[in-house]
C-alpha cells in the first residue's frame, strides 16, 4: 500500500514537473542605455494576462527635464523563450496610495483631478532603432475616461517565436498646456512596462465578413483615383480628408493606398509585409475601451511596395489629419501633409518665412567708423597744438 501511495505521489510530482517544464514561460528584460545599470527582468506565462512591471528606476533622464526642453530615454526590451507573441506597452500610472485618514473599507484614496491631469503632463514620442516614430503624442486620441493610467503601445514582439531585442527611444517633454501645479503629481507617476502574451490566431473576436458581399471598390468623394485593392474581395474607402477604410483583404501601398504615415484604428489583426514579402510588423487592434487584447491605435509608416493585410475593417488616418484642427485640404493625398513635426506651424505655404541667415553684425561699418574717429582725434590734436 505504501509503495502504491509513494508511486502515485512520485507520478503526480513527475507530471507536475513535466507540465511546468513545458509550460510557456516567457522572460522579459528591460534595461536603459546607462552602462552598469541593472536590467529589470521578469517572467510570464500565457495565463498571466497583463503583467505590469515598474521601470521607473530606469527612467533616469526624467530628472534632466528641469534643465532640458526634452530628453530621450532609451530602453531596450528583450523578450526570451516566448511561446507566443507578446504585446508591449509603456504605462504611466497614478500610484494608488493607501489613505491613512480613511477606514479600512476605503483603504485606497481616489485620485484628485490634478492627479488625473498629471497623466497628460508629459508629451511622449517613441522612436524605434531605425528612427521610425512608432508613437506620437500629437496624434494620440483624447481619452476622457478617468483611467488611472495611460498606455503607450510599443508594438508586438516575438512574432517569430525567436528571442527578440527592441530598442525604444522615448522622447519626453513637458506639455506646456498642462498647468505647472500638476508637476508634483507627474513626478510621482509610476512608469511601467506592460506585457501580455497575444495569441494571434485565436485572441481576437473578429467579426466575420459575409462571403456573399459583393466585391467592389468604393471611392466616396475622391474623383482623382480609383483604388484597386490587391484582392478582389477587399475594399478601400477613402474620405475627402484622406482617411482610408480597409475591409478584410490585402492591399498594396502605392497602388491601393498612398504611401505615408498613418494612425491605424479598428479591430482585428493587421500584418504589414515589406516589398520583399518579409513580415515588417503585426498589430492586434481593438476597439476603444475594449477589454480584449491589443492596442487601440498604432502609428505606422507605410512605404511604397509594402503590403498590408487586415482581417477586419481597419481605418488608416493620415498622421496629420488625425489631429488637424484646420479644415482638411481638398487633396486626398496623404503624403502632402504627412509627418510634419512642428504641428503648431501652419503647413500652408503663405505663412512660412525664409529664415534670415545673413550676418547683420555691422563689423565693416564699425571698423570704418573707428578709423575715421581715430583720424578725427589726431586731426583735433594737431589743430589744438597748432593753436597753442
Amino acid at each position: 500500500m505504501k509503495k502504491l501511495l509513494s508511486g502515485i505521489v512520485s507520478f503526480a510530482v513527475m507530471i507536475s514537473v513535466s507540465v511546468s517544464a513545458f509550460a510557456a514561460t516567457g522572460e522579459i528584460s528591460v534595461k536603459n542605455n546607462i552602462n552598469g545599470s541593472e536590467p529589470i527582468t521578469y517572467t510570464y506565462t500565457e495565463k498571466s494576462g497583463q503583467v505590469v512591471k515598474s521601470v521607473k528606476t530606469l527612467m533616469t533622464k526624467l530628472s534632466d527635464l528641469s534643465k532640458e526642453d526634452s530628453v530621450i530615454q532609451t530602453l531596450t526590451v528583450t523578450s526570451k523563450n516566448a511561446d507566443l507573441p507578446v504585446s508591449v506597452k509603456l504605462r504611466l500610472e497614478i500610484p494608488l496610495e493607501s489613505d491613512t485618514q480613511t477606514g479600512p473599507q476605503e483603504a485606497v484614496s481616489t485620485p484628485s483631478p490634478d492627479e488625473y491631469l498629471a497623466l497628460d503632463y508629459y508629451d511622449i514620442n517613441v522612436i524605434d532603432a531605425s528612427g521610425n516614430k512608432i508613437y506620437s503624442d500629437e496624434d494620440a486620441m483624447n481619452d476622457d475616461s478617468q483611467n488611472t493610467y495611460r498606455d503607450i503601445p510599443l508594438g508586438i514582439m516575438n512574432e517569430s517565436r525567436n528571442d527578440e531585442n527592441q530598442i525604444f527611444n522615448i522622447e519626453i517633454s513637458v506639455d506646456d498646456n498642462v498647468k505647472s501645479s500638476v508637476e508634483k503629481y507627474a513626478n510621482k507617476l509610476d512608469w511601467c512596462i506592460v506585457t501580455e502574451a497575444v495569441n494571434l490566431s485565436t485572441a481576437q473576436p473578429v467579426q466575420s465578413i459575409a462571403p456573399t458581399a459583393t466585391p467592389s471598390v468604393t471611392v466616396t468623394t475622391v474623383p482623382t483615383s480609383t483604388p484597386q485593392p490587391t484582392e478582389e474581395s477587399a475594399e478601400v474607402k477613402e474620405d475627402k480628408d484622406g482617411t482610408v477604410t480597409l475591409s478584410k483583404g490585402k492591399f498594396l501601398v502605392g497602388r491601393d493606398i498612398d504611401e505615408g504615415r498613418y494612425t491605424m484604428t479598428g479591430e482585428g489583426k493587421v500584418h504589414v509585409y515589406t516589398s520583399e514579402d518579409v513580415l515588417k510588423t503585426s498589430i492586434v487592434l481593438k476597439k476603444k475601451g475594449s477589454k480584449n487584447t491589443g492596442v487601440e491605435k498604432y502609428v505606422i509608416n507605410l512605404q511604397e511596395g509594402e503590403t498590408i493585410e487586415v482581417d477586419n475593417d481597419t481605418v488608416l488616418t493620415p498622421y496629420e489629419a488625425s489631429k488637424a484642427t484646420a479644415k482638411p485640404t481638398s487633396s486626398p493625398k496623404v503624403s502632402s501633409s504627412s509627418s510634419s513635426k512642428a504641428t503648431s506651424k501652419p503647413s500652408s505655404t503663405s505663412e512660412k518665412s525664409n529664415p534670415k541667415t545673413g550676418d547683420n553684425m555691422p563689423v565693416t561699418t564699425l571698423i570704418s567708423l573707428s578709423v575715421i574717429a581715430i583720424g578725427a582725434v589726431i586731426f583735433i590734436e594737431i589743430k589744438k597744438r597748432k593753436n597753442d
Partner: protein
Amino acid sequence: MKVKKILTLIQVLLILFIVVCCIFVGKYFYDCKNAQVEYENLQDVVEKYPRVDASGNYIEERDDNGILLSYSNLYKQNNDMVGWIKISDTKIDYPVVRSKDNEYYLHRDFSKNSQYSGIPFMDYESQDISSNYIIYAHNMKDGSMFADLLKYEDKSFYDSHSTIIFDDLYERGEYQILGVFTTKVGANNEFRYHDYANITDGEKFSEYIKKVKELSCYDTGITAEYGDKLITLSTCAYHTSNERFVVVAKKIIK
C-alpha cells in the same frame, strides 16, 4: 580757451566711441573663434571614425541604438542632431540639427547656448519621409558656416567640387550638385524654395526640380527624378538685400 575745451570733449567722446567699437568688433571675432574651436572639437569626435577604410569600403560601425558610431556620442549630447554636412576645401564641416521651428538654432550653438553664428539646421518640415532636406546656415563674414557656399557662384569651383557629403545619423550619403541659384525674398519673382521642405509626391518634386534648373546660374547637366533624395543648402547672399544663395544636390550613394 572755450574752443579748446570743446575740442577736448569731442576727442574724449571719439575715443570712447573707438573703444566701444573695438570691444564690439573684438567680441564678434572672439565669439566666432570660440565657435570655430567648438566645431573643431566636434569634428575631432567625428573623425575618430573615418568614413572610408583603407580598402575604400564604407565602415558601418553602429551603436546599440543603430546610430553610426561617428555620430552617436554627439547625438547623446544633443538629440536634435540629424546629420553632418561637409564640403571639401571649404569651412563647411558641421553637424546639422533640426528643431520644432526654423528660429531656434539661428543663434544657438550645438550645446544650445546663445551664439550669433548659430549652427546649420534642417527645415522643421524636412522629416525623414520628405524627398528634400533643406539645410540653412548663416553666411558669416568671418567665412564660417555657409559663407563658402557662395564659392559655387564660380563654375570652375563647381567643376572641381561637384559633390557634397551629408550623412544622416544612420546612413552615409554623397550628393551630386544639380543646380545653384539665387532668389530674392519678397520679390515678385521670388522662388519660395523653402515651401518645398516636405516633398512627398512626384508632382511637387518635378515642379521643384524644374524651377531649380530654370534658375540655376549654370547648367550642371545633372537632373533628378522622383525617388531621388535631394539636399538643398541655403544661406544669405549680399548681392542685394534679402537675397538667398541656394545649392541643390541629389543623393548618389545610398
